[in-house]
């Protein structure tokens, strides 16, 4: 067990006053265990719809574990207890179809991982798997997804080219397009720009800011500047606890907890 120099019971969590229908997701007493080790300690967090929320914290703080729990990606890896409410439904309960959950709550990973297929097929693969066969509908979905991910103009003339021929930044935007092709409500992103150069990072950030008009976005990032630039809300994690959660402008100009202040100022640990 890691001992913290900070008092982990001292927290400041902004209670979102929005009505439930304006919330995309809400966790209640969420706990995650890897075997006997507890990684998340009963956290309650609510995410506002059509906003970007950043989860920040040092390595091992639990932010990625927390994120992956939100669409049941920890199933089979960790034991997740507590409730996760999505549209009034506890999606962490046993009788929930996790594949349905992931259609509504999509995930984009740290490293771009396009399928070894054409650009077009990367988008249509999941749609076909879900029974969509109409060519016009598939083509429309390819176009709208790529447009939403700000990639259409760069690839529209070479949709049959291998996705692996794209640059890292383009591949990541293709992965975003692939996720939004399923028309999810919520996009979870686990450090989506950490493997990219600054220009590609900037494009991803711009894309996310555009995407929040249609989707709720929850992003794990090590890059505090990225969190401050694009997110509306920020949650600071430390040793499996959410220490502070507030509007990003408050977190980065006047945090209420010393640990948050030290982390964002680079004086942490």
């Amino acid at each position, binding site marked *: 067990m890691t001992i913290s120099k900070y008092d982990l019971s001292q927290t400041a969590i902004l209670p979102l006053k929005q009505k439930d229908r304006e919330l995309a997701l809400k966790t209640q007493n969420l706990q995650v265990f890897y075997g006997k080790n507890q990684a998340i300690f009963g956290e309650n967090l609510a995410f506002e719809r059509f906003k970007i929320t950043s989860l920040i914290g040092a390595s091992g703080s639990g932010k990625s574990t927390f994120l992956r729990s939100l669409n049941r990606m920890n199933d089979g890896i960790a034991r997740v207890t507590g409730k996760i409410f999505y549209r009034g439904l506890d999606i962490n309960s046993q009788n929930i179809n996790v594949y349905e959950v992931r259609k509504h709550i999509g995930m984009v990973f740290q490293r771009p991982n396009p399928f070894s297929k054409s650009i077009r097929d990367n988008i249509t693969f999941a749609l076909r798997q879900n029974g969509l066969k109409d060519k016009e509908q598939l083509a429309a979905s390819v176009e709208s997804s790529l447009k939403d991910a700000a990639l259409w103009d760069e690839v529209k003339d070479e949709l049959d080219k291998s996705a692996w021929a794209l640059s890292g930044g383009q591949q990541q935007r293709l992965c975003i397009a692939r996720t939004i092709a399923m028309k999810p409500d919520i996009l979870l992103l686990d450090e989506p720009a950490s493997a990219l150069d600054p220009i590609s990072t900037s494009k991803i950030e711009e894309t996310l*800011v555009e995407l929040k008009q249609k989707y709720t976005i929850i992003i794990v990032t090590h890059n505090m*500047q990225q969190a*401050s*630039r*694009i997110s509306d809300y920020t949650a600071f994690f430390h040793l499996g606890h959410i220490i502070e959660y507030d509007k990003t*402008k408050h977190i*980065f*100009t006047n945090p209420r907890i010393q640990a948050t202040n030290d982390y964002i100022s680079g004086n942490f640990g």
Partner: protein
Amino acid sequence: MAKILLKQLKSLHQDFATMGLEIATALQQAAQAFRAKDQKLAQIVIDHDEKINEQEIYLEKKATQVIALQQPVSNDLRILITILKASSDLERIGDHVAKFAQAALKIPAEKKNSIIEDAITKMSQHDHQMLQKIIQAYIDNDESAAQEIAKSDLETDHYLRLIRQEAMSTMQNDPDFVSVGTEYVVVAAHLERIGDYVTNVAEWIVYTNSGKIVELGFH
């Protein structure tokens, strides 16, 4: 995330210009209230100063937030520093405008000195022109215009000397005029300070463009 930063800079830019133009309007109203000894209009100008103070606080808060959240560098950072510093100069101009309006309540119409009143009118018109021009130079980011405007501050100094001399000589000949004469000198001093603050804004426009901190006062 250049797009967000650009949008926020544009919004602050507009808010700053709006604040400047509102103060220019207030200065015109104060001059009118002073000329006509219109107490009602003077009170409107005095009350409006509160709004100007709020505008400064808003600009400072927003500019600080943009610096913290967007980490601007180079030109973008200078734009924000200018907004932070020059909004404080505008706020001080607002204070002097309010003091100018207050003087309208203090000088009885029957004790007016037409030579001094005429000089104060001209001085306030000159201040108003300086203020309008500096806001335009800010909007256009025009460094050379800013430097020209700063030079014209010499004229406000000239008016101050003129008013002071006239007030002094009148006071020497008419002891009953001392309290009014002193008030006139105070008014002229307020108007002279407005010219100084406009010069400060001009210096910040130069800084935005060149990154150089300069002294444009010609005293």
